[in-house]
């Protein structure tokens, strides 16, 4: 089972955001994407997930085409920069609401996901009162709680302390063991070295280099 991108290209208001991206990614591996700010990592995740339409090329998941056979990847967990949750609900309530949409998981699994990221499921504080690190942990929890086949993590360790970073790395490792396909965008060389099986370098919307870790 693989996620394949063929000639993916996207422009926004005349500016090329992604140019001829070709990828072939398999389950049970971590694919790292690194590059400067504005190199197109986040846009690539948006395109591969189906959140953003592409101008040309195609994206295939299990031999089915995105935007033709389905509009978003059917089993996806995603953490994107600047995405948020409901500020006046607790972490558990937020995740319960999201979990109720597809009804794949119940409260038990949601609590488990919260514990895995180091949050207290029964914390009465609302999301609006969370620190940046807590918000980031909650974002990771919502991405993993439904045990998705594809997990896309855009700077998941942003704002986390050392312990938090270790926890997220552990989770990524566990999810890889579970067989998920993980896409990881990070500025941290350490993250790439420790976690990624393949590392792609991006610049100006293009893949400029690939490195496969042994």
């Amino acid at each position, binding site marked *: 089972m693989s996620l394949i991108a063929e000639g993916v290209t996207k422009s926004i208001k005349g500016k090329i955001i992604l140019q001829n991206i070709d990828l072939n990614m398999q389950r049970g591996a971590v694919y790292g994407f690194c590059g400067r700010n504005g190199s197109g990592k986040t846009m690539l995740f*948006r395109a591969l997930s189906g*959140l953003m*339409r592409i101008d040309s090329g195609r994206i295939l998941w299990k031999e089915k085409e995105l935007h033709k056979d389905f509009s978003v990847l059917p089993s*996806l967990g995603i953490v994107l920069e600047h995405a948020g*949750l409901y500020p006046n609900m607790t972490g558990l309530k937020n995740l319960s609401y999201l979990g109720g949409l597809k009804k794949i998981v119940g409260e038990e699994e949601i609590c488990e996901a919260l514990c895995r990221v180091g949050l207290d499921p029964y914390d009465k504080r609302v999301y609006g009162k969370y620190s940046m690190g807590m918000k980031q942990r909650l974002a990771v929890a919502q991405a993993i709680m439904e045990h998705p086949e594809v997990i896309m993590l855009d700077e998941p360790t942003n704002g986390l302390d050392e312990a938090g970073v270790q926890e997220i790395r552990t989770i990524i490792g566990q999810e890889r063991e579970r067989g998920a396909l993980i896409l990881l965008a990070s500025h941290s060389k350490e993250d790439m070295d420790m976690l990624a099986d393949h590392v792609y370098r991006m610049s100006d919307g293009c893949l400029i280099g690939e490195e496969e870790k042994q």
Partner: protein
Amino acid sequence: MLRKLILYQTQCLLKQREAAVTFLLLIWFIIGNYLGNVIAFRGMDITQMYYPMKLMTLSYNRVNYNADVTTLFIMLYPILVTLPAGFSYVKEQQTRTEVYLVARLGKKNYMRSRLWSAFFATALVFTVPFLLEIILYLVSFPMEAQNDFSHLGMYEPEYALKVHRYLGSALYLESPLFYVAVMVLFFGAVSGILGMLPVAVSQAVPVRFRMFLFLPDYLLLNATSYLQVMRKGSVTCNWYDYLLLFQDEPKNIWYLVTGIGIVVVLTAVLSFAGGKKETW
């Protein structure tokens, strides 16, 4: 899947503060009106008493007597109708929760379910209190009382003319109680349609301050009133003349159909435009 999603999202909307506040406000209107009626008509002889359904909050017939609660309701309705669900999309957009929802549902399903859940949530909030009011009046006042606030006799031609001007007069002539129930459901349905419009607007147009979402319904409904004041015709085009019960101004059903049609078309077009939009 869409049906389950709409049901789920409607349930979530009804649990939110805005829906609860609107519901309680409507209940407050109803209780205020009820208490006023109890005080005013306490001890009145049944032969002089007015038909209980004509005492209700949505009854325009009250205009002939004392309609302070109805007045307040008419003034607030253009704003209130937005409240239960009008901000549901913009909230998710501003907090960027939209990303997680679209990632799970796909944009089309998400947008459609938002729109339909806004319809059902608003419709329920604006129907249930008035259905409860019907039961309250059935229990509290004598249904045998038949008088009208215009003080016209039932057999007077002028009264018959007024009755024939009610929207759904055929229903009224068949069974006044059934007429009231159906008209309350109709009121709820129209409120639901109006509740969809701000959601559709927020899907198509970026909204920075949520209070601007009061504008679509506020402008549309008040536009009908302005049109009525500016026109010289005898047939009314005022929104409340079509939505309130026992309203005996001359009406044109096509005005109502056109008005609802405009809202539906606008909602569909805006939502469609919003679906085509890409947000980065």
